């Protein structure tokens, strides 16, 4: 599994290697050429002030006085053709189906372990495995009701899955707000292009959550559970609750009595049937998980085990999105669905294997090395751009605990024209589509495109200077 030869120039979403505009961008490109830079600059300033006023921000820990920051928004959209999207959506659907089947299997019969596709220690020695979930049936056998699958394009433009996010994936509010902003700033572009709508995501999300309510509940009460206004993603929690028309609750608003979950209201207790939680497993129930958690609900796990409440995503989904499990996802697709994977993984070396470890140490200057449990772009070595000292430092860390690391070739992520200080210039991007699984699988056409605003940077995370773009899927 040697990486595909890395082209010197990464592929660009808008232009082919010989400078031709790709089909999905043709209308946009004609418009962009005629648009003076000054007008673009004004639109960007307008977007910034609107985002501030509307309070589309992420809170920064330790900052007071409402100093929430904006995630930089880029006014150049990322555009996919209907055909590209169909191919991608089919792959996402297949992948999430297999991942849900895998989680259900792990917490029940463990066929995949008996078949030898994965080794037992990969599961039982993983701190994302939740023994509390063993043997527990969840409605519809669905665990990851909301999945955010990070996809990149490399080489000649092939899609690769970089990461599966099956715990509390965030970012969908930016997908929706970016679209709203684009329609406000550039209405004429939507008249010129047939852009598939995304606005119905909250309706789909609510339907999806209601479809996995405990059996026998006719009109399920759905709530969004947030750690509170100081959480960095609070805007999104409030936004989704508002758009779905459901209560946004904190742990202190819920309690368990007689095996059921209730929220405290001005008219007394009210039953809760489905909890879309945006806090991690560890903090959900201080009686079962971290006892110092003030964010959770004592007794929640017992109500959950009794089937009186649905928690979305289910507890224990982390076992399927861990970086050490990621290399096995194509095998899961084959094992559970009997199909060949439609979406490729990035070739990954697992450093607990001696061969992979030896290769990686010999090629540190070519590879990206990631911590298995790292997130947010932290704990990562990008070999080609790291200094000699950084590589040496990482070598020691890997040697101390090789099982904590994986290595991947440095992908030449595709670039997309982006409006930066110097004007329109190519920047690396990724894409996080959101896959909803309930009675059926739903994917709103598009997703969150993240862009690394620094020239040459491959890190798109908002905590590291990344921005976002509106993502267009054109209709046929």
């Amino acid at each position: 599994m040697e990486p595909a030869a890395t082209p010197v120039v990464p592929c660009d979403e808008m232009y082919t290697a010989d400078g031709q505009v790709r089909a999905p961008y043709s209308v946009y490109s004609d418009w962009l050429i005629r648009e003076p830079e000054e007008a673009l600059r004004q639109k960007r300033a307008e977007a910034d002030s609107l985002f501030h006023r509307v309070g589309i921000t992420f809170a920064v820990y330790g900052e007071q006085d409402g100093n929430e920051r904006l995630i930089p928004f880029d006014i150049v959209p990322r555009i996919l053709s209907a055909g590209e999207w169909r191919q991608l959506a089919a792959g996402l659907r297949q992948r999430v189906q297999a991942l849900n089947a895998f989680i259900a299997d792990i917490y029940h019969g463990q066929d995949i372990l008996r078949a030898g596709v994965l080794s037992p220690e990969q599961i039982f020695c993983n701190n994302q495995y939740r023994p509390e979930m063993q043997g527990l049936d969840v409605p519809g056998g669905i665990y990851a009701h909301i999945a955010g699958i990070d996809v990149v394009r490399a080489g000649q433009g092939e899609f690769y899955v970089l990461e599966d996010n099956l715990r509390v994936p965030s970012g969908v509010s930016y997908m929706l707000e970016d679209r709203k902003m684009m329609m406000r700033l550039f209405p004429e572009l939507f008249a010129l292009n047939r852009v598939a709508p995304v606005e119905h995501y909250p309706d789909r999300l609510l339907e999806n959550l209601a479809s996995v309510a405990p059996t026998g509940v006719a009109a399920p009460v759905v709530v969004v559970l947030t750690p509170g206004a100081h959480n960095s993603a609070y805007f999104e929690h409030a936004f989704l609750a508002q758009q779905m028309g459901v209560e946004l609750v904190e742990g202190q608003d819920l309690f368990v009595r007689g095996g059921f979950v209730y929220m405290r209201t001005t008219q007394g207790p009210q039953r809760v049937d489905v909890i879309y939680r945006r806090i991690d497993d560890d903090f959900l129930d201080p009686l079962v998980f971290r006892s110092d958690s003030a964010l959770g609900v004592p007794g929640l796990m017992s109500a959950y085990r009794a089937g009186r409440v649905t928690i979305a995503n289910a507890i224990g989904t982390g076992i399927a999105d861990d970086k050490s499990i990621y290399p096995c996802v194509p095998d899961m697709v084959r094992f559970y669905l009997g199909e060949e994977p439609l979406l490729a993984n990035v070739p990954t070396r697992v450093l607990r294997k001696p061969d992979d470890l030896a290769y990686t140490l010999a090629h540190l200057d070519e590879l990206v090395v990631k911590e298995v449990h790292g997130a947010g772009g932290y704990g990562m070595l990008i070999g080609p751009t790291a200094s000699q000292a950084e590589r040496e430092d990482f070598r020691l860390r890997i040697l101390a605990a090789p099982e904590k690391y994986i290595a991947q070739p440095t992908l030449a992520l595709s670039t997309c024209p982006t409006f930066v200080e110097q004007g329109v210039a190519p920047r690396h991007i990724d894409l996080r589509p959101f896959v909803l699984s309930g009675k059926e699988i739903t994917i709103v056409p598009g997703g969150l495109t993240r862009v690394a605003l620094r020239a040459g940077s491959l890190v798109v995370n908002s905590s590291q200077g990344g921005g976002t773009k509106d993502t267009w899927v054109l209709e046929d």
Partner: protein
Amino acid sequence: MLSRTADHVYWLGRYAERAENLARTLDVQYRLSLLPRKSTSEGVGWGLTLSTLSFADAYGARFGDNHEAHRVIDFLAFDRENPSSILNCLRAARENARAVRGSISSEMWETFNATWLEARGNAPNRFSARNVAEFIEWVKYRAHLARGVVLGSMLRDEGYHFMQMGTFLERADGVARLLRIRLACEAADNTGEPVTHDYLPWTVLLRALSAYEIFRRVSRDRVTPMHVVEFAAFRPDVPRSLLRSADLVFDNLAAVANTRSGETQRRAGVLHAMLRFGTLDTLGAGGAEAFLQDVITRVGDLNDRIGRDFLGHVVPT
């Protein structure tokens, strides 16, 4: 509705109204300081303002008995260490709105957010003690805007009723205190000699309540202290009168009544009846000052009881 949500919208209403009331109170004292005065020194007026608003200790601990106008104005309007300065009230309103931004309309959230961002962005340059008149105007303007947004965009659900309760309890408290400050200044002016009443301060007060033209239209009385007190306390049709506030507290409380709130409703009814059927002749032995203090005490009691009955507060007995 979630108790915590109701708590936040209630305090959103209170803090927004408090900012406006403080601006109006400041308006009176500031305008008076521009008038050619006869007896009371300006410092006494500011001192009485601080004590009637229950700020005397917090202020005294930092500035002693230095009651220079710019210092007091800065403390009341802009001081970041005074939790009830106008600036901090605007911030608290915004923080409460942010905590329930999913339960109020987007327009409401944006309005309270924009007000705070603009206040923060302009203090201390454009907004400062030297420019307090402009700031007062701006606060009133933003309050008018917010009121319109609430009326025009908020669902008439429990949240609305809790916000209204917060607003009108705070208004009753603020207006009662404003009248008390004036009466206290009047008493300080009284040297024992018979004086013709200075009508000017009461005219200023009526203007600060946006009620001078109304007074002229509905009352044939001269502007005297007791006529203004009667007008501001007992008129059912004056937007900032005590009776109108008590009326709205009673109605909004009735709209959210639960199995625990009977006694609270009764007490809201008592406050309402006191003002609905009160006259200058029934003020009681303590006169207007004691009557206003009684109103303030009853408002505080209703606040505590609403917290206990609906908002999940534990009130020490």
